């Protein structure tokens, strides 16, 4: 794939990720538990991981967190998102390299890692281990949202393949 084309595609994915972050900020989902999110933007990161490589997906992830954080959040929300985003990215990247799961399983791992990463940072910020009491709720929500996002990404991928994006499975 040409360089220009890649730049254009990555830019498009970043825009999509940012938009998904915005849509997510409009959806009241969380049940009063800090750290629980739908993780819609993870869709774009997951797609990127399958269409290009870890490097591009990581850059996309960090950029959309910073952009979304400055636009719709604050310093603390950026801190939590970065922790969750990096944990989730690293786990998904590793799982994809090990290559023993489908996109579904990888997405579930990512969702769970995202929530656990956030709660660890939260424990440091509030300086209390009390937040670990939330772990089971975070696990459950990570599994559910991960399944959902994995399912949707699995639906989108074949269409990207048809449009001459290089999908590596």
């Amino acid at each position, binding site marked *: 794939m040409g360089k220009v084309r890649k730049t254009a595609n990555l830019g498009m994915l970043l825009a999509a990720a940012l938009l998904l972050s915005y849509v997510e900020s409009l959806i009241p989902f*969380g049940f009063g538990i*800090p750290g629980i999110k739908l993780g819609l933007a993870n869709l774009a990161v997951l797609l990127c991981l399958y269409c290009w490589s870890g490097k591009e997906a990581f850059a996309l992830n960090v950029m959309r967190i910073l952009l979304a954080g400055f636009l719709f959040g604050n310093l603390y929300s950026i801190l939590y998102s970065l922790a969750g985003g990096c944990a989730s990215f690293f786990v998904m990247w590793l799982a994809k390299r090990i290559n023993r799961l489908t996109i579904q399983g990888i997405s579930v*791992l990512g969702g769970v890692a995202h929530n656990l990463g956030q709660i660890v940072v*939260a424990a440091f910020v*509030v300086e209390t281990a*009390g937040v670990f009491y939330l772990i089971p709720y975070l696990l*459950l929500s990570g599994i559910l949202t991960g399944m959902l996002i994995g399912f949707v990404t699995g639906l989108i991928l074949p269409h990207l393949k048809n449009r001459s994006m290089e999908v590596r499975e």
Partner: protein
Amino acid sequence: MDLKTKKRNDFLLTGFLLIAAISFLIFQNYRGKMGSRVIVQQNGETLYELSLTEDRTGENALRLETAAGYNLLVIEDGKAYIKEADCPDKLCVKQRAISRQGESLICLPHRLVVAVEGEEKSEIDAVTY
């Protein structure tokens, strides 16, 4: 690795995580004895210790006004909850009332934690969660 094996792995992984989460949840709900007091902490520093047996509603509710912001803590029928707050996400207000040891109310934007504890000071009880 073929698709079928991968799908089986997906299933096993998800099942394992689900079981882990649910057993953790059950463990927490049944093990937790009723607490007798709540501790209000900000940035890891204890600001207040209140008894859960004394109601603090209406006028007597605890107004927590700190540099970070304002939260109104109410204790009613042995349960504590945050009634009002000026944090952006209001997640602390939406949280369920707490009464069992180890349960906590958390307001991340204000770095505030309200945790239930038992009679004697048992740091370990709080940490295991």
